[in-house]
Every structure is written in C-alpha cells, then in structure tokens.
C-alpha cells in the first residue's frame, strides 16, 4: 500500500514528461498535394505554404481582395511569418541552422554563411531544369550576375538572389543608390546658397553653416543643420572622400595589383577630418551616434528641424518623404526639398559599383516537390509583365488603365497609394520594387526623372574621372575564418574616432594599427590567392 503511494507521484512525473515530449516532438502535418490542374487551369489541391518576409502583415489584411487573388489563383493558403527588420539576420540564421526554415524565406545573403549552408545541406537544391521550367525567373536571375557566379562555386542553384533592376535599369554602369542627400530648398534661397545637382562635402557644410548662422526657419536651438546618423555620415561624408571606407569595399585590389584595406587609406582620414569638423562646428547633432534607423531623416521630414539629411537615390524614397512632410508638417515638399549627389572635396565622385542584387530567396531543404513548384509558379508569374503590373499597380481597369499613348495611368483617388488600398503586398517575392519604381505612375514623374538623372550623373561622374569601388567577385565570394573575423562596424568605429579627444590623425593611426592583427591575415590570404 505504502509502495503504491510512493509510486503515484513518480508515475505522475513520468507521465507528464512523456506528454511534454510527445507535444514537443509532434509537428504540424505538412500539406501534401500535387500540382495538377483542372479543366479551367486551376490547381486542384490546396497547399499551405509557410513564408517568412520582412513585410508586416497585420491581422485581417490577408482577407483583402489583392491577397485573395493570389491565394485563389495559385490555390494556396499562406502561413505567414513576419520578421522584424532588426532581428532578420539573427532569426534566419537560427532557423536555417536549426532546420526550422519556412518553405520559402527572404534572406539577406551573406556569402560565408551561404557556402556553409550549402556545404551542410541546409538549403534546397533546385532541379537542374528549373531555368527552362520558369523562364521569367531565370531571366531576372541572370540579371543579378551573382546567381551564375554561385553556381560555378557550388555546382547547382541553391538561392535566388533578388534583382534590383530587371527591365528598367536607370544607368550603366549601375552605381549604388546611396549617396543622395535632401536639403531645404527654401532655406538655401533664404541664405543665398546656389542649388546644384552635385555638391562637395565642404559645400554642403558651408550651406549648413549658413543655415546655422542665419536660422531662416527660426528654429533656434532645435535646428539640426546636418541630420545624419553614424551610417549616413559614413555614406555622405567619409565615402564621398574615400570609396573603400565602407564594409562592402574595404578589401580591394589596388593599382599595384596587391590588396589593401581601405580604412587605412589617407582618403579615409580626409573623410574623418571633415566629419569631425562638422561635429565640432555643431553641424551634426551632438548625439547623432545614438540615433537608430530613421531618427536622422525624421528630423527633416517629420519634425522639419533639419537643413540636410540623407535620402538615397530611389524615386520611392522621395515620394515617401513627400508624403511624410505632407502628413506631419502639412507642407508641399516640392516647394521645400532639393536633392543632390555628394562629391569628395577634391571634386571627384565616389561610390560603390552596384551589383544588381540585394538579399535573396531561399527554400527549406525539406520542402516538398509540389510546394516548391507551386511557389516557383507564383514567382514566375509575379516576375512576368502582367504580374509586375498587378503587384505594383493593382487591378487593370479598377486601379489603373493604359492612357492614350499606352502610358500607365493610375485610377486611384488623389492622395491614395496602392499600399493604402492593399496593404502589405508581400507576394512580389522576387524582383525588388526598385525596378518598377522607375516607371510607376503612382510615383510623381518629377521624382522618377530626378532619380534617373542622379543615377546617370553618378555613372557619368564615376567613370569620367571619378572613383567607383568596383565589385570584385574574387573578394566578395572569398570566404575564410580570418575574413569573417576581420569584419567591423565601420560606421561606429569612425564615429568613435571623431569623438575621441586628442589628435584625430594620431588616433586614426593607432586605430589602424590596432586592427592589423585581424586585417593583415586577410590581406595575406587575398594576396596569395588573387594578387597579380
């Protein structure tokens, strides 16, 4: 009897443990089904597809007409996983490594990780004939350049790098969209500062000084002459003077055929000196280095207290700024905003040659053949002209129409965007929105033309006497432990350098020296493998 009594709690614990284990180990039953179609060309079987994206889909949004159209057309049900921007890299890394990757996910491609994942079988390998079966995807994929390079390394396709431009490339060579600033046109006129398409870093600082001195906006101590966060300052002050100062191009092959580390170049010191000058003269905010995400641009477009901010070169960014200024400040930004590109103090244009991809699509290694094919069918359609129009303009006849000259005409009421009507259109899984933004009538024609003008100026100035950091496939696709270890957050390193007391040049030299134990092994490796 006593034995029985003692046994009871033990049994209860054991049973609980078994139940817990059983619950933890059970997984959702995967949807199975084929891709057969009925007589109307509709897929017979409904598939539940899990997808992970950085677009936030709020409750009830999937019920709107737009999302329903895609779900009906491909007979799918989405199991949507929203990933916050800040935790994107970490979450994907954990999902991939733990084998929990959704069926399809957006992943910010990191070459070292990609090679490891392929090596370990953590990504789905595409069938050999995929390019014939999904020709629209294959055509866009070819435009990225990266896809073919990776196939050479891995012997197959494991990833779809997302093309930035597909049919509407604005310039050749393509230069990174970063390095475009927005400035207050009305204040420039008030302080007698000439409006141009390109300024040197010192000219922008001169403008900021004038605004600070004359305060045309009557803002007093609230005025922020140059509203850059640490990353903006790197882009628009340091990179403008040193094309190899950013992480993307820090290791590069010099004219001597040997590899160098850009942050140690004297041009980087020039950029640092200008940044420090801007800080010491009170042109940058005293706490700019604590700003996260949009705080810098919000001072311009939400609070209206900044004279200069970093914008970027896409027409959609300008449209967003216009909307934000209208909503928050009740002003028409066309009368107040001027955009321009930034030159180095020697008058030369510097930026990064843009590979035509940004981030990627990857598939779970455990995805069923049916699901993979269904997703690829959807992506292929979304990449077609019809799909692109649907994604970016909505439904023909309802949201847009062709005009007399076959141009696209939006039918949305003034002040309504497609995003307002159909929020979170994540179905454009593959081709990035940058491509269509070049021709999208929902974006003001003036903004589109200005964006193209900046791209073309960048290409012209970059190739005619300028200094574009070329995209070196050898370096970019080279992976090793020393290279992974010698990766730094340059924007924070530079901000820290200009904030230190003492002589900047001495501090910079000391900093360069302190990094050598990590940097030199990478240079040695690159020199031994790729130097002339």
């Amino acid at each position, binding site marked *: 009897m006593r034995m029985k009594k*003692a046994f009871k709690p033990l049994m209860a614990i054991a049973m609980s443990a078994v139940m817990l284990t059983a619950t933890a180990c059970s997984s959702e039953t995967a949807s199975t089904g084929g891709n057969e179609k009925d007589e109307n060309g509709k897929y017979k079987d409904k598939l539940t597809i899990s997808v992970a994206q950085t677009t936030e889909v709020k409750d009830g949004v999937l019920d709107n007409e737009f999302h329903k159209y895609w779900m009906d057309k491909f007979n799918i049900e989405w199991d949507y996983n929203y990933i916050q921007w800040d935790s994107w*890299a*970490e979450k994907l890394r954990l999902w991939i490594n733990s084998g929990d990757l959704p069926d399809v996910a957006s992943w910010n491609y990191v070459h070292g990780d990609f090679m*490891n994942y392929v090596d370990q079988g953590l990504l789905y390998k595409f069938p050999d004939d995929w390019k014939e079966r999904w020709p629209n995807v294959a055509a866009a994929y070819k435009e990225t350049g990266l896809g073919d390079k990776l196939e050479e390394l891995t012997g197959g396709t494991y990833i779809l790098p997302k093309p930035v431009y597909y049919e509407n490339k604005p310039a050749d060579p393509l230069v990174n969209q970063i390095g475009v600033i927005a400035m207050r046109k009305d204040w420039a006129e008030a302080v007698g500062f000439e409006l141009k398409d390109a300024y040197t870093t010192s000219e922008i600082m001169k403008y900021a000084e004038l605004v600070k001195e004359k305060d045309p906006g009557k803002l007093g101590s609230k005025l922020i002459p140059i509203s850059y966060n640490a990353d903006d300052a790197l882009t628009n002050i340091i990179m403008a003077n040193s094309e190899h100062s950013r992480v993307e191009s820090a290791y590069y092959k010099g004219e001597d055929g040997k590899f160098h580390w850009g942050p140690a170049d004297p041009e980087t010191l020039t950029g640092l000196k200008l940044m420090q000058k801007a800080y010491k003269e009170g042109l940058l905010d005293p706490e700019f280095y*604590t700003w996260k995400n949009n705080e810098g641009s919000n001072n311009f477009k939400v609070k209206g207290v900044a004279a200069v901010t970093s914008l970027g070169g896409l027409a959609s960014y300008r449209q967003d700024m216009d909307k934000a200024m209208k909503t928050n400040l009740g002003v028409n930004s066309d009368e107040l905003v001027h955009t321009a590109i930034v030159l180095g103090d020697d008058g030369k244009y510097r930026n990064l040659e843009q590979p035509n991809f940004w981030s990627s699509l990857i598939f779970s290694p455990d995805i069923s053949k049916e699901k993979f094919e269904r997703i690829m069918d959807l992506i292929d359609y979304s990449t077609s002209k019809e799909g692109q129009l649907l994604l970016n303009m909505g439904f023909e006849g309802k949201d847009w129409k062709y005009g007399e000259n076959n141009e696209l005409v939006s039918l949305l009421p003034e002040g309504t965007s497609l995003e307002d009507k159909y929020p979170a259109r994540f179905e454009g899984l593959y081709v990035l929105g940058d491509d269509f933004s070049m021709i999208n009538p929902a974006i003001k024609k003036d903004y589109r033309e200005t964006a193209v003008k900046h791209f073309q100026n960048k290409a012209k100035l970059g190739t005619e006497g300028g200094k574009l950091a070329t995209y070196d496939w050898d370096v970019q696709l080279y992976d090793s432990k020393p290279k992974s*270890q010698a990766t730094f957050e340059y924007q*924070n390193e530079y901000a820290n350098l200009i904030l230190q007391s003492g002589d900047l040049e001495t501090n910079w030299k000391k900093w360069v020296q302190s990094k050598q134990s*990590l940097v030199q092994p990478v240079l040695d490796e690159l020199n031994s493998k790729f130097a002339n």
Partner: protein
Amino acid sequence: MKPAALGPDKKLSGRLGTGAWYKEIWKHRMTYTLLIPGLIWLILFAYLPMGGLSLAFKDYKASEGILGSPWVGFENFKYVFRDPNFIDAVWRTLYINIIKLVIMFPVPILLALALNELRMRKTKKWFQTIFTFPQFLSWIIVSGIVINVLSYDGLVNSALQLLGLPTINFLGSEEMFLPMLIITDIWKSAGWGAIIFLAAISGIDQDQYESSQIDGASRMQQIFKITLPNILPTVSVMFILNVGGIMSAGFDQIFNLANAATQNVSQVLDVYIYRVTFQSSTDFSFSTAVSLFRSLVNMFLLLGANKVAKLMGGDGLFR
C-alpha cells in the same frame, strides 16, 4: 548553518552500512521524490547542455550536429586569442564588474539594515515596494528612460539650460559610462537584493535584541553586534556567488546603454560574444570557445572566493 544531510553522506553511509543507507532513503522517500523534478531540470538544462561545450574544440556543422562535427583541437582558441578585441573585452569585463562589485555589493545590505530599522509596517512595505519595483523593468525600458533623461534635450540638460548652466554630454562620455552603469544598476537591483538580506535578518533570534536592550545597547550597537554578525553567512554566500558571475554580468545593461561614442569602454565579454555570434559570419565554435574561456575564469574566481571566505572563518559554498 549546516545543510540538512539528504544525500549519501559518507559519514552516514559508513556508519549505517549500505543496507541501512537504502533504508534511510526509503524512510525519506517523499522528500527524495520532491527532489526529482529539480534534478531532472538540472540534468536537462544545466548538465546536458554542457555537452555543447565540445563545440569549442570542433568545426561545427549544423547538418552533422554537435557529436558529428569534426574535432579541430585548439584551433578556435588560436583565433580567439589573436583578436585584440577579445583580450580587451576580458580586461574590461573584469574591470567593470570588480568595480561594480566593490561599490554595489554593500548597497543591498545597507538598504536591508535601513528597512529593518523602520518600525511602522506600512511605511516599511511602502518603501520596500518602491525599492523592489525597478527590478521588474527590463533593461530596454530602463535604458530608454535613462537616454531620455540624460540626452541633450532630456530632463537633466533642460534643467541645466534653464538654470543657465552648460549642458553635459552624459551619453557620449567615456568617463561617465561606468558611473552610469553603477547608478542605474543600484537603482534597478538594490531593492531586490535587499530581500535576501531582509529574510536573513528576520531569521535572527529576537531574544538577542531583547537581551541587548536590557543591557542598554543602542540601535547602532545592535546592528553591528547582532544583526551583521548573524547575517554574515548569507553575506558570504552572496559574495561568493557574485564573484563567480563576474565574467558574465551585465550584458543587457551594457548592450542597451552603450553607443558608438562609448564603444571603447563598453565592449565586455558578453557583448563581444554576441557580436562574433550574430553580427559577423556565423561561427558557433568560435563563440563557444570564448564562452568556455569565460566559464573557466568564472569557475576559478568562484573557487578562489570560496577559499578566501573559508580562510576568513566563513562556511563557504562547498567543502
């Protein structure tokens, strides 16, 4: 304070013999049964994960798992010690946490003594709630408050401006970073820490106080002659535990309060591990090597503190 002899104490088993020892266990079977969930938890979440430490000596491949990944000896440590940021992070962690320990450790004791001296129950509870509440705020919230209060357009600098005084760069000052860590940590955790000491104080035999009152002892004399000596074993255990966690303390706080201006004084070992694990290319073996190193240092510090406590006449954590 001698712990209750529940385990297979050598003296006990020697005295009783194996059969009698089992009998003794059977006699206390209900107590042992209650121990089982705790033991399972400890095995599952403390001992089994230790197997993962082998990653420090392997080239980890997720597809091959921890056991299947190839051994690489001390290769990962070679890279760890080559990184000057790692060495800096080790010294900085020790520096920050030793200073925090020296300054912060007495605060909960003093707070507990002060609270114990309050005679009105309601007031005592009110103060205790006020001091304990910040513990329940996450460091993200606390850092948000601190940044808003101390920024250039925050509460403090606005007040300074109103008084015609110059503003102070609190957030971007390397010199002020450590004091900021200490002050915010005291604000957040002193009240919580005081609970343990208050519990120890409440366990003191009240006869001692009554006798001392009859002998004419003042309140201060009671504190120094009765309260403090009685809670010394608890103080000693808490001190040893704090020393044992020196190398792994403060990630949330430092990560949320640091910025580019203070990165030279804020990169402690945990921040370094976070950076190498999540911000550059994934390398779990490398970060495990760093973690293992940190755990070893923590262990030696714990053993050292335990030894010192015993040399000073205390009980220590273990024999």
